[in-house]
């Protein structure tokens, strides 16, 4: 599924004293199967942007095409779009409401009017995808689970709708490192194996650096950078100006370069940094 966004703007309380421009004239295309990170500060318009893609907000200006269907067209049924574009909100565990984990995950598929056996398959599948033990947990109340498990149940609830595009708004906020890595791993698997287009919203560079193929950087509602991870991290000064910074290893190399090293490549993780530094130490003859 492809997403095409043209000159999109969203203004809160238009014409009111509290008027704020949350999304300011943003355009981009996302191809089928891409893994895109949307990154920006709190209040940069990330959350508003993704909610317009899901049809929850009507854009003030501009157009959104999902598989060439114009979302801003009044004739297009928003519920059809929501079947294809799954949106996992920030702190999604607050949306849990059913008596059992099973019922909660089945809520989405039920709204799609699927048959009971199809729902059953989907619940099992999506629980497996997020790493929850079906036998152990399907009859448990979601409110008895730990924070990380609740989060998984909520994500499974969206996955059970079999979306072709999955949008996650800071899926790891407030989780411990282990739960965070596991959830990110599962999102990656979903993208690589099931070819789901994924949009991952985050404010942490470290988190997205090794995960996504492409980064879109937002600042004050505007798109400032868009490209593959390495090319975005080359804009070190701009990112620091915005207050986002780059991952620590990338920064380390930048500092080394300031002190006279000459490492040309942009590194994203410790392994790459190690190789680059070793290469440097062995002498510049290789360059």
């Amino acid at each position, binding site marked *: 599924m492809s997403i095409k966004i043209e000159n999109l703007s969203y203004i*809160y309380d238009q014409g009111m004293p509290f008027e704020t421009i949350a999304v300011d004239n943003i355009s981009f295309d996302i191809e089928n199967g891409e893994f895109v990170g949307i990154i920006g500060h709190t209040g940069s318009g990330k959350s508003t942007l993704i909610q317009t893609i899901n049809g929850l907000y009507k854009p003030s200006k501009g157009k959104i095409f999902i598989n060439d269907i114009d979302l801003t067209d009044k004739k297009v049924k928003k519920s059809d779009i929501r079947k294809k574009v799954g*949106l996992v*909100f920030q702190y999604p565990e*607050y*949306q849990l409401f059913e008596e059992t984990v099973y019922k909660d995950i089945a*809520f989405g598929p039920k709204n799609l009017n699927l048959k009971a056996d199809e729902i059953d398959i989907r619940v099992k599948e999506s629980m497996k995808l997020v790493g929850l033990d079906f036998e152990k947990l399907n009859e448990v109340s979601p409110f008895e689970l730990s924070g990380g498990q609740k989060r998984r149940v909520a994500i499974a609830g*969206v996955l059970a*709708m079999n979306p072709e595009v999955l949008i996650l708004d800071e899926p790891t906020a407030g989780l411990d490192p282990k739960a965070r890595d596991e959830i990110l791993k599962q999102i990656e698997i979903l993208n690589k194996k099931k070819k789901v287009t994924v949009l991952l919203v985050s404010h942490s560079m470290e988190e997205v650096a090794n995960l996504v193929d492409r980064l879109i950087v937002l600042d004050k509602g505007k798109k400032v950078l868009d490209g593959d991870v390495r090319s975005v991290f080359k804009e070190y000064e701009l990112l620091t100006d915005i207050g986002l910074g780059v991952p620590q290893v990338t920064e380390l190399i930048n500092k080394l370069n300031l002190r006279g090293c000459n490492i040309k490549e942009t590194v994203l993780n410790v392994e790459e940094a190690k190789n680059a530094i070793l290469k440097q130490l062995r002498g510049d003859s290789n360059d």
Partner: protein
Amino acid sequence: MIRDITVGQYYPSESTIHDLDPRFKIIASFIYMISIFAVESIIGYGVVTLFIVFLIKMSKIPIKYILKGLKPIMLIIIFAFVINVFFTPGKVIFEYRIIKVTSEGLYRGFFMAIRLVFLIIGTSLLTLTTSPLKLTDGIEKLLNPFKKIGLPAHELAMMMTISLRFIPTLLEETDKIMKAQMARGADFESGSIVNRAKGLIPLLVPLFISAFQRADDLAMAMEARCYRGGDNRTQLKVLKYTRKDLIGSFVLILYVASLFAFKMVW
């Protein structure tokens, strides 16, 4: 839609109305409320309209913003109007099968609707121009005389502030959960009444849970800072009547007197 509700919100601005003493504003609101239900003539409502428009202008709050607050209660206003129009006995001016419209009904329905509109505008003007903190202070001071008969004035005032404070938070939360469930295919807008009521469960359960959670957290946070209400608590900003309140009282007296003078009441 949920963002439209302005009741209980504070609109920060610098105006004479904002500067008035909260005690005076609360009493004035009461008098105003009584006045709109006592007025019985069209000219009387003209005076009320002039008065409230004058106050809105003084408060520097955009009229559009205040009128926006009426949107969510439009249904109640229309309902009150319709009930009065169709079920008031009197001179029939229009009849169709069992439906009867009387002139008295039209008259009463119209007044009822107008009263509700003025009531909402007036009371929201109080909360829009008074910060929750000042409002509580005002309520507490006004309730102080009743302490002698065992009324927990401070606690009551505290409860009121907290509930006022949490109206916008709860609305925001409702909005968020609603959107989250809509993203999972929930439908809040169509279907039969039974289905719609059932459709509210995915909204209400998480909302209640988070509200209780919030209340619990807040209680804990207050206790952690050794909060103890009532006696011997001193205040950072002590309420004082000023010249502005004196002028305000004159305006209020003028308003009430003009209603009486021109026999617009009863």
